[in-house]
């Protein structure tokens, strides 16, 4: 849970999300390139934040990527992102 917890903490700090799901998909990729034996390499993040308002898709994902810069360089091999504003998620 180390990486998942770090993702949760950093996104909470950066985006003050109205809702946040961090899903570890690593088991689906066991054995393939980039999968780490200890897991926690492939994640899906579903985040709802007012900070996405007025931003296009690229800018929203860049916010998420920016918050997780360290993890992306080390632990995370793949990251699927769904970034919505509270209005879009309602």
């Amino acid at each position, binding site marked *: 849970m180390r990486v998942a917890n770090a993702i949760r903490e950093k996104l909470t700090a950066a985006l003050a999300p109205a809702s946040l799901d961090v899903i570890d998909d690593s088991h689906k*990729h066991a054995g393939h*390139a*980039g999968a780490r034996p200890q897991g926690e390499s492939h994640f899906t993040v579903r985040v709802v934040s007012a900070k996405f308002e007025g931003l296009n*898709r*690229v800018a929203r*994902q*860049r916010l998420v*990527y920016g918050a997780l*810069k360290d993890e*992306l*360089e080390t632990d995370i091999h*793949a*990251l*699927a*992102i*769904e970034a919505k504003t509270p209005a879009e998620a309602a």
Partner: protein
Amino acid sequence: MALDDATRQRITKEVTDNPVVLFMKGTPVFPMCGFSAASVQILSHLGVRFKGINVLEDPAVREGIKAYSDWPTIPQLYLKGEFVGGCDILKEMFTTGELSALLAEKGIELDPAA
């Protein structure tokens, strides 16, 4: 995420010379990653002729494209020299019809057989 001048120039040339470029892992015929495969599928489904650039064959481009686009993951799609996004964005834009609209707006020819 280093980007030297030679690599920057090569990337600029690729995205300028080719209307649609997908920086991906593997080739359009043999994608080596699920996200790259999904992106190829979307483009092929729409009948988009594109150039696939296999970053696994080229470590300079693999790291360089991340700095070039300010985007830390692969695949990455370029239309007429402009960064569109990665796999999540492609999927969303395909689902909403925005991708077809963007292709039309940019004057990208589609393969009628698709």
